[in-house]
Every structure is written in structure tokens, then in C-alpha cells.
């Protein structure tokens, strides 16, 4: 057992590009679900639209990278409007059903043969991140010697990504301390009450859906740039649920909840993965093969993580940053 190796790898993952992606996606969900009470189960759809906008603009159409960023943000606004117009007047559950379906429709459409010319089918698109990488001032691997180390491209994604996270958190903080944010929280509590006080609930929900969706698009950008390739499998439904997990670990309706959640989530995923891999490998493994083989080891981390999530929900249901007092109200 190499404990130092385990910790190094876990810290690398906890701060790495994947954590950035889930953090951004969870910030979007925090606006939707945490503050407004909108059950968006299609965050992967918003991410896909963002990611593919960059990839397709650059690779399929040969247009500049920055134009792809603009297209991505515009496309998520359009998607939010398409989802919101028919559902936001209805009860909360309708949005959940429609968003989860929409995310699947988007994923299947992006992988379809008919649209291969634009989106590359199941094998997706590559070669769109040259511009992004050319801006990087980093040439070699970065890290603390003997502890952690990231490849140059990964580190550049991290720098840009965590900067975006910082900006997004600042935006969320500024919005949620304002009367605008107060209306959002009020809608989460009881939208009829808000309506009776003269607020256009529908419009506020739409604004929330658009803003959270744009954070989702940023997560999609980072997904594409992280691996310098994109394909429909990156945006399966489980991405949305992992993003929810990140949000709940950190605590919903807290500005820094998604940040803490993403770091903890990726640390655990990585740590458990490495731990079980090491515990089952070699001639005399810590866990004998009769109990667990090395093939099973890579899956067991999700079981343990699920268990940890259950325990968290039982003993600290408000998440890391949540306020227990608020939760006591639900019990009434």
C-alpha cells in the first residue's frame, strides 16, 4: 500500500479538470434547484449544447474559437427558453420530466448518423482546442515535487476553469443577496404567495433557468477542452446525477456548496478507486481475491460512495455548508 501515492492521485483529481466541470455544472443546478426550486434533471443537455457549440463551430465550420463560445452561450439560452416556455407554468415535476427527456434527445441527436457532418456521430469531434491551448502560458508539467503534478494542458484548463468557478460564485453571491435572489428563494418556498405579492413568477423562473443553464454551458466548454475531444457519451444522464450529488454534498442554496462538493466528491471517487485497486493487486493482496477481484475493485468505489452519500443525508442532510435550522422547518 502506497499511501502517499494514493493521496497524491486523489488531490490531483480533487483539484483537477473533472472537478472543475462538475463544480460548474453544480453551480448551475444550485441556481435552478437550490435557490429557485426548479428540478432540472437535464443539466447534461445544457453541457452538451455548450461543448458541441465550441467543437462544431471550430471543427465543422472552421470558424474562430471565441465565436464558438458565444454560440454556446446563445444556444443554451435558446434551449432554456424551449424547455421553459411550455413547462414553467406547470407544476415542478413537469420540468423534471421534460428536462431529462430533452437531455437524452440532445445526446441522441448529436450522435445521429444524419448529422455526422456537423457533430461527427458517435465518434464525436476533435481538433478544436488548438486556439485555447495556444493561449496557455504554461509549457511544462506543474505541481509540487513529489506530491502532485499536472500536465501542462490540464493545468491550463484548471487555471481557466477555477477562474470561471470564482467568477460564477461571485455572480451567484451578488445575485442571491439582492432582492432578485430573494424573489427566487420565495418562489422555491411558495410561488402562489409570490404571485399574490405582484411578482411575475414565470419570468423569474425563466431567468433562473437561463442563468443556471449558462453555467451548465461553461461546464460543457470545460468538458470539451479538458479532453480536446468530444463525443455523445460525455453527456449521459449520470453526469446530471453526479452533479446533483456534488451539490448535495456541499449543501444546496449555499454559494460555495458546489465548490466544496466537487472537491470532496472527486477526492473520494479517486481515493476509493486507487485504494481498492491497490488493495486487490499484487501477489499477496490486502483483500483476498475470494472477496474481491481487481476487476470488481473499480466498481466498488461507487458502492462505497453511495453508502457515504446515504450516511451524509442521514446525519448531515443539509450538506457541508447547509444550515440545520432551515432543515428543521421541513420536518414540521
Amino acid at each position: 500500500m502506497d499511501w502517499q501515492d494514493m493521496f497524491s492521485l486523489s488531490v490531483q483529481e480533487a483539484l483537477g479538470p473533472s472537478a472543475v466541470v462538475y463544480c460548474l455544472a453544480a453551480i448551475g443546478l444550485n441556481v435552478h434547484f437550490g435557490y429557485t426550486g426548479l428540478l432540472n434533471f437535464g443539466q447534461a443537455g445544457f453541457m452538451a449544447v455548450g461543448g458541441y457549440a465550441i467543437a462544431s463551430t471550430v471543427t465543422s465550420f472552421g470558424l474562430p474559437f471565441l465565436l464558438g463560445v458565444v454560440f454556446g452561450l446563445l444556444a443554451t439560452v435558446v434551449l432554456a427558453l424551449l424547455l421553459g416556455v411550455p413547462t414553467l407554468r406547470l407544476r415542478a415535476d413537469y420540468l423534471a420530466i421534460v428536462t431529462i427527456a430533452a437531455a437524452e434527445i440532445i445526446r441522441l441527436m448529436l450522435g445521429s448518423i444524419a448529422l455526422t457532418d456537423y457533430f461527427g456521430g458517435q465518434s464525436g469531434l476533435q481538433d478544436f482546442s488548438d486556439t485555447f491551448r495556444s493561449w496557455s502560458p504554461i509549457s511544462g508539467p506543474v505541481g509540487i515535487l513529489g506530491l502532485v503534478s499536472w500536465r501542462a494542458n490540464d493545468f491550463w484548463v484548471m487555471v481557466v476553469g477555477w477562474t470561471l468557478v470564482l467568477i460564477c460564485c461571485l455572480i451567484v453571491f451578488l445575485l442571491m443577496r439582492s432582492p432578485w435572489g430573494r424573489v427566487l428563494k420565495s418562489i422555491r418556498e411558495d410561488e402562489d404567495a409570490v404571485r399574490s405579492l405582484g411578482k411575475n413568477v414565470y419570468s423569474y423562473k425563466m431567468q433562473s433557468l437561463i442563468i443556471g443553464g449558462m453555467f451548465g454551458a461553461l461546464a460543457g466548454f470545460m468538458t470539451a477542452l479538458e479532453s480536446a475531444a468530444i463525443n455523445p457519451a460525455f453527456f449521459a444522464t449520470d453526469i446530471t446525477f453526479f452533479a446533483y450529488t456534488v451539490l448535495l454534498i456541499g449543501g444546496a442554496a449555499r454559494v460555495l456548496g458546489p465548490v466544496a462538493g466537487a472537491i470532496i466528491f472527486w477526492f473520494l471517487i479517486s481515493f476509493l478507486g486507487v485504494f481498492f485497486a491497490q488493495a486487490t493487486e499484487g501477489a499477496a493482496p490486502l483483500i483476498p481475491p475470494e472477496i474481491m477481484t481487481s476487476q470488481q475493485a473499480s466498481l466498488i468505489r461507487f458502492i462505497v460512495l453511495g453508502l457515504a452519500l446515504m450516511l451524509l443525508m442521514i446525519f448531515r442532510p443539509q450538506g457541508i455548508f447547509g444550515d440545520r435550522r432551515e432543515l428543521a422547518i421541513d420536518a414540521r
Partner: protein
Amino acid sequence: MPADSVSMGKHRSDDAPIDGTGDGTGEPRTDQSVGARAGLSDVAHEPGAAKPDPILVADDIVRQFGGLTAVDVGHLEVQRGVITALIGPNGAGKTTLFNVLTGFDSPDSGKWSFNGKSLAKMPAYKVSRMGMVRTFQLTKVLAKLTVIENMRVGATGQKGERIWSAMIRPLWSRQEGSNTTRADALLARFKLDAKREDFAGSLSGGQRKLLEMARALMADPELVMLDEPMAGVNPALKQSLLGHVKSLREDGRTVLFVEHDMDMVRDISDWVIVMAQGQVIAEGPPDAVMGDQRVIDAYLGAHHDSELTLEQEEEILVAAEAELAARRGDHDVGGADGHDRRTGSTAIGSAEHHDARDDRP
């Protein structure tokens, strides 16, 4: 009641039957109801009677749920500056009418106007912005917001509620400050100031009613519509709630409320509208309406005036059963003469004779 910093002299129209108290002179009038009722003295005691200065006028409002006509109101006027009670048995359509008038439900047909402006097809939030704010039968407080935040949400025309200015605090902080001052004054008036920083979800049922009413006042409404303000409130708090509703009239506001508590109706209302089976069946000052035979028949029952003792209940039951037995014997007696004076226990009588009058949902 101390001088009220949030009272609204400006809402009163010039020809309104009340003259200023909300102007900050600090002298609350002792008998407002005399002045308020004076304007109604010439109004006929009949359903749909025209008022000298109506704030709300409704015509031919029909709302059907499937085959059931929940509301079918021919003509209705609500006088400005007075407290009007809307009463009727369960399922009479009072709350449905409330929902329709405030834009929370849309009628199958009909038109209605507030201060002469038509409200048909207007969404609820716009109705509220025009100065017609309602509360709910089941209180709707924003549980995970503090009491003071609940109050602040009520304020209208907030600059910080627009997304572009929301992020820049200096654009809205002054307005927020004055709203907070107003909110604190209202909380003090409703004796909720000690709960200022508590979550609204931690308040008791009665305190929630108070908070909901206070929050509605933050929107500075001309017409306050209260849906069963006394439901689930303990007797001690009831008295202070009564005082608060009366004080709304002293502010120069108009109040329309739905209530089952007859003591309250008698105590504070200047005018009573009685609904049954979706229709307005009687109107008038409380004493006149409660003496009206139609109202007694349709709603109050023969013993509405007194608490029933156990013995009396027993007697009524025996009498009703005897009557039922007699009717079963004689099949000709049935729903044809629907409003023959029922003896006491109307529910038994109506159920047996498939007379749906009291069983409307």
C-alpha cells in the same frame, strides 16, 4: 394603536365616504364604522345591489368544474372604504370567486373591474400590482426566509428585483433601507417585531396569519382580500386580529374577507354578502342579513344564534329521524319543495333526499 407610519391616505379617492385619518395626524377615529356604514345606508338589501362608490364590480361570473357550477354570480359590487364580509356554507363558491377575482383562476365567462379597469384575463401578479392583494385560506408564508425577509418580498417596485441592477448593491440599497423601515413599523404594529430574525416556518399558525396580513400590507394595497383570516387562530389572538382588520379600514383601505366565524362577521363587517351554491343570495348590513330568513334557511340553520346543548342536539336528532321516517312513509314529499324549513340537522335531511345544496365541494 399608535400613529401608523405606513397608513395610506393617498389611496382614498376624493369622493370616498371616509375622510382622512391615515394622514399622520395620529388620532385614530374611534368609530369608523359609523362613517363607513353611512355610505351604505341607502343601498338596497338585495343581491347585486348597486353601491354609491364601488371599488370592485363583477358581472356574470361563471366558473364551472366539469358539470358543477361552482360560481354563478350575476352582479356584485364592493363598496370602497368599508369592510365587506363574504359568507356562505362550505362549497358555496366563496374561495373560487376569490380566486377568479384575483386572477388565480380564470372563469368560463364574465367580466369584472377594479377601480373601473377591467381585470379579465389579467394574470394574478398584475392584479396584485393594481392594488388588490389577497391572503390565502391555508397560510402561505415563505418558510425558509426570515420574518423580515418575508416582509421585504412584499414591497412593490423594487429596483433590486431586476436582474441587471440586482448585482450592483448601491442601485437598490437605499430603497431596501426604506422598505425595511416600513417593514419594521408593520411588524411592530402586528406585534411580530420580536420574531424579526426567526424563520417564518417556525411561527405558530396564528402568527403566520398575522405575518401574511402584514406582508400583504407591504404591497400597499387599496383592496385587501382575506380568505378566512380567523381559521385556526386561538381566541386570544383572534381579538387582536379583529383589531388589525378594523385598522385596515382606518388606514382608508377596503377589506373583503371570507369567514365562517359569525362573531367576527357581526363584529367588524359593515356589509355582508351571502353566497350559496355559487350564487349571491342575500346582501345587507350584518344584522339585517343574519335576520334574513333565506340566509337562515340556506346557511345558518335554525339554531345559529345559540350554542347547542347536548340535550338540544339529542332532541334535534330525534326530531330529524322522526321526520325522515315520516317522509320515507310518504314518497310524495321530496325535493320538490326544496326549501321547506328544515329542522336543525340539515345535513341528515339533505343527504337523505339527495338535495345537493349543502354538499357542494
